[in-house]
């Protein structure tokens, strides 16, 4: 299962590595990252393209898990259209 996650978050020390670590620990592999540099304390957006590793891991659940991180304000994911595009 591939998915594209768009994560809105407040820039803070460790914020990006916290999100990337969570994605990998929850059984997904990050295949593409798009992010813009922002000063600390500002809101920014991180776009991740991920693919599920072994087992049936749901991007819906992954989005909720990222969404509960402190400093993350919004997570959307677009697995269907991304799949179509990838195909």
């Amino acid at each position, binding site marked *: 299962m591939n998915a594209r996650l768009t994560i809105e978050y407040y820039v803070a*020390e460790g914020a990006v590595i916290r999100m990337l670590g969570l994605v990998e620990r929850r059984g997904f592999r990050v295949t593409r990252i798009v992010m813009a540099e922002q000063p600390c304390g500002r809101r920014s957006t991180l776009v991740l393209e991920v693919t599920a590793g072994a087992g049936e891991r*749901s991007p819906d*659940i992954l*989005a909720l*898990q990222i969404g*509960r991180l402190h400093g993350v*304000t919004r997570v959307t994911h677009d697995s269907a259209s991304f799949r179509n595009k990838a195909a």
Partner: protein
Amino acid sequence: MNALAPRLHQAAPDAAPPAVPAGISGARLVVEALEREGVTHIFGYPGGAIMPVYDALTGSSLTHILVRHEQAAALAADAWGRVTGEPGVCLATSGPGATNLVTGIANAFMDSVPMVAITGQVPSALMGTDAFQEVDIFGITLPIVKHSYVVRSPDDIPEIFAEAFALARSGRPGPVLIDLPKNVTQGLSSHIGNYQVPWFDLPEPDGRAIEKANRLIEAATQPLLYFGGGIAIGRAERALRNFAERTGMPSVATLKGLGGLPTDAPNFLGMLGMHGTRAANHAVDECDLLICVGARFDDRATGKLDTFAPNAKVIHIDGDPAEIGKLRRPEVGIGGDLTLVLDRLTGIPGDISGWQARCADNRQRWAARYDAPGTGIYAPAMLKELSEAAGDDLIVTCDVGQHQMWVAQHCRFSRPQAHLTSAGLGTMGYGIPAGIGALLAEPDATVLTVTGDGSIMMNIHELATLRRYRLPLKILLLDNSQLGLVRQWQEYFFDRNFSEIDLSDNPDFAEVARAFGIEAFTVDYRSEVPAAIERLLSTDGPILCHARIDPRTSVWPLVPPNKSNMEMMEEEL
């Protein structure tokens, strides 16, 4: 997309930012922040990088409990958090002090316990230079904290601490780490801006989902309530008990759920899963509706997941919406405060008297037996008698191994806070530090630590802490001179290839305890058990009962790994 996540409000109701003048040291700000949060006890161990905070502690209202290893500080803080519902606080220096906290932080994370862990750090200018006792504790703990901070200025301390405590205790609780470089605690504040104390709440339960759940309950003929640690976390036992009583449905608990309903409650079938009761596992297998409350379909509870509750529709209720559908997709998922949800589940099943009777018959038919042959101490019987004699104010803290499962199976619990166990991480060495934390959190309780001869050695130095503070912890050490649960698995799943389980060269534990200044005695025969229980419960100070048990005794039933819960192994009599 994220509507179910806990919501952050900019300020708590009635919360006003504290007025903090400039020119205050960072260490003083730390102490004042802790006092503002209502902290009374801190568990810790001093060292170089955290010394400014220890300097500021003297003269404060905070009571510091000096443990003998930082892991014990974190585990005691964990127990404090479980008993009080408020964050337990642990404090350590940089480097090894900080890394020694890691197991305790992970323990709190796995079991969703509110905790604030404070670590010293080398001065900011030295960070990243491999300085003496420098370690990246922020990076090390990223996967096992709810959130973490490196404080960069004394001015940030009040706001960061307020946010850390709000995070630790809100939504699904968990540990929060605050790393304090030494120059920050030594430095003086210059300008502390206004800030608002954050406040988080759980999402409002979805009314349509509740309606749908009520319809499922009304239509069910064999409903089953399956509850877990979320009941203790959410302080939802009143709502759970009311729900169980008004619906009359049979119920099962996870390891962490024990105490949510009293052990002797009508229709309660005990723990489910790997070492659960046969009655509980059969009920799960047969039910047509499974109402999961504050549990997460953990592998120890479900066995082989695709065989779990095969005939059931599922209603999953959890404070953390990210748990809903993670492992089992429910027919209805409801995120939110468990009390609110349970109180709104007003649907009543039809006539389930036949189902209730079958479950009750199974409970009776497969009830544990305590008539083991021989004259040696039978641990399950001793635990049952001890917990019954101790009464309702008992808190049991467990270590990890066979004794942990025997406690879960055979002790009587009257409330969720009566059973403190390292369920998610399975931390050997949890028992005594947790007993210390529990006793300080609830001084009037009878606190009993049940440990094994493997586990006690992992934090045996904390007997010194018991002695120092004269904490009347009662310790029951079940000694089978081996790592019993590993032995059991090697016996049944590794062709009896017994590898590195022998602990027959253990020290004389009673002598060790006495060397720490703890009253202790040893028993070998079941005829000695009544007097041992009497002595344990009547002694005012800390006491250790060293009970030598048969090393061949195993924990039954047992579901083999990756098997269905219906494939329980039983003792061959």
